[in-house]
């Protein structure tokens, strides 16, 4: 019984925090609506006014597809690094990881490291090459050497799966989180989120989205820094004293300083690590940010700066997580009459803010969480719209020669439809256990996008047939194993035992996808395979030097 309860909590938290954006799993089912938080609402309105002003300015510059999708490639490396961090450092990270540490101490850090570990890989393998080869989306990169139509359709489909699943998780989580933090009704929260995101993205495109993400990242970093400093001030800036107080308050005592309180199985740890690292690297809205900078050097700098900001954020969360144990456990005001933490473990971070900074800091952090959701949903919406209007319409249906005005109009219509779908799906799924939906994007990204991108950039023998076969196997196996796993088979369908023991199957599906891609490519002797292989040298040159070898310009 106790294990089942713990499992549900962990699954929920994992689904929430395993995403670089805001997932929904931790805030499932009925959520007690809190009293209207006026400080939070005033601060959030200030954020909205500032970002809408930026959007209005950006809308004047957003007149072509290029400025819409990639801000005209004029964002600097440092700005883009901050925007990537803004896209990635989510309410999920802030609330979910602190909440998980509140329950299990050190074990919660696996999610911090898992998420952070993706950035060096992005920088070493992809930043420069992807920037040099693509124009708007990562699909541009893959389709350069392979048969463009089938590849674009398959990758655009996987992108849309990732974006839609992500959005459902986002919207359900957002609605419930806003109920908790602001005391607003669920449906109203969804309409506000969707309406603002539509405004940012449809009118301001990538330029406005970038600035929303930059402002949000600055606010979030400021908030966690303030909380961490105020926490340490209470203990003479001694982190060891903070840990001592945490061990004295937590029921598990000194066990929270090392592994084992929540997770015991090393294979489960590996599945989480693989899903989070390779899943993050392959997320379409993160990869899309690489095209907003003017050149390959700035692309590398983007990933570097993103690492610095995100690394700092997770170190600050280390203080916040143990700080939550040290301060919140021994404050009865944060617990209800049944002894449960008010709002659940995900509210631990907000309670810490309240404990060290009173109503003002609580209001500020609540507003930051709302802003965070907007920034992440904006990035996702833009990425989904680009997959439809650029990858499917412009590149497949119009064979790369679309009417620019029509393409831009279609993009804005796509943004509107995605926003509408997000609200409707958010309402439809509001009482469902959506933890499994939040898992799908990471696993699909690790099992489809990452292998395709890696092999198309670094293996001359990669062919269209291998890419499509591996992508389909990766996609189907990911969804099947998630359905057979504990999150769906037990938590949703009510069976006693899962047919597959792990929540994140990427440890198995990613190698499977790689193997299928490899063996199908090796066995492929078609004419198209010859073309795919011959295209590699020119692609590799363009990826590294910006231009193909003489006489090998076509790919």
């Amino acid at each position, binding site marked *: 019984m106790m294990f089942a309860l713990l499992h549900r909590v962990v699954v929920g938290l994992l689904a929430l925090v395993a995403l670089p954006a805001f997932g929904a799993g931790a805030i499932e089912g009925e959520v007690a609506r809190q009293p209207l938080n006026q400080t939070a609402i005033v601060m959030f309105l200030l954020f909205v006014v500032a970002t809408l002003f930026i959007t209005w300015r950006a809308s004047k510059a957003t007149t072509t597809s290029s400025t819409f999708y990639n801000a005209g490639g004029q964002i600097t490396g440092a700005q883009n690094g901050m925007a990537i961090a803004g896209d990635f450092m989510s309410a999920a990270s802030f609330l979910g990881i602190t909440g998980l540490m509140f329950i299990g101490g*050190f074990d919660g*850090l*696996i999610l*911090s*490291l898992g998420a*952070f*570990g993706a*950035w*060096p*890989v992005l*920088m*070493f*393998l992809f930043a420069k090459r992807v920037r040099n080869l693509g124009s708007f989306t990562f699909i541009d990169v893959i389709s350069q050497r392979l048969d463009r139509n089938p590849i674009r359709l398959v990758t655009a489909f996987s992108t849309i799966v990732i974006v839609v699943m992500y959005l459902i998780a986002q919207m359900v989580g957002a609605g419930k989180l806003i109920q908790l933090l602001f005391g607003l009704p669920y449906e109203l929260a969804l309409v506000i989120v969707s309406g603002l995101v539509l405004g940012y993205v449809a009118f301001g495109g990538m330029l406005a989205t970038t600035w929303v993400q930059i402002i949000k990242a600055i606010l979030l970093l400021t908030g966690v820094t303030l909380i961490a400093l105020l926490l340490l001030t209470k203990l003479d800036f001694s*982190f*060891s*004293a903070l*840990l*001592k107080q945490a*061990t004295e308050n937590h029921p598990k005592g*000194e066990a929270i*300083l*090392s*592994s*084992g309180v929540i*997770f*015991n*199985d*090393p294979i489960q*740890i*590996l599945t989480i*690590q693989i899903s989070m*690292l390779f899943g993050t690297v392959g997320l379409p809205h993160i990869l899309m940010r690489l095209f907003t900078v003017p050149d390959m*050097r700035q692309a*590398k*700098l983007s*990933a*570097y700066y993103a*690492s*610095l900001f995100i*690394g700092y954020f*997770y*170190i600050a969360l*280390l203080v916040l997580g143990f700080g939550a144990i040290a301060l919140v456990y021994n404050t009865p005001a944060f617990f209800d009459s049944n002894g449960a933490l008010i709002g659940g473990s995900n509210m631990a971070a907000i309670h810490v803010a309240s404990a060290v900074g009173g109503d003002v800091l609580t209001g500020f952090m609540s507003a930051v969480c709302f802003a965070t959701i907007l920034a992440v949903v904006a990035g996702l919406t833009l990425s989904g719209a680009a997959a439809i209007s650029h990858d499917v319409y412009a590149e497949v249906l119009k064979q790369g020669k679309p009417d620019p005005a029509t393409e831009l109009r279609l993009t804005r219509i796509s943004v509107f439809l995605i926003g509408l779908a997000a609200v409707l799906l958010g309402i439809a799924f509001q009482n469902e256990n959506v933890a499994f939906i939040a898992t799908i994007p990471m696993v699909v990204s690790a099992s489809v996008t990452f292998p395709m991108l890696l092999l198309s950039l*670094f293996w001359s023998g990669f062919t269209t047939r291998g890419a499509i076969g591996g992508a389909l196997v990766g996609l189907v196996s990911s969804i099947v194993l998630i359905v057979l796993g504990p999150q769906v088979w037990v938590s949703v369908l009510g069976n006693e035992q899962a047919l597959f023991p792990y929540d994140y199957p990427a440890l198995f599906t990613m190698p499977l996808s790689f193997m299928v891609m490899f063996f199908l490519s090796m066995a492929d002797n078609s004419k198209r395979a010859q073309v795919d292989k011959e295209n590699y040298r020119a692609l*590799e*040159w363009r990826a*590294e*030097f910006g231009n193909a*070898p003489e006489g090998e310009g076509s790919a």
Partner: protein
Amino acid sequence: MTTKDRLLRERTRRRFLFTGLHLLLYFSFSLNWTSWGGFLAERLGATYLSGAIVMFAVLVVLFIVLESVFLWLSQREERS
């Protein structure tokens, strides 16, 4: 093989070398959940810092150091 082809191979090797090093460090964190990593549960001297917590902080710093070195090597190569 041209000079540029050699340069390209060298850069690709470097990319995989850094990625390999990074992944080695990254997955070493899972030692905490195995019996081989038992020593990481120990506290450091009289402090309440455990080996596991120190490992987390050190890994975050090491990842950034690795990236800094990679960036520095790339920039040095571009300048020359």
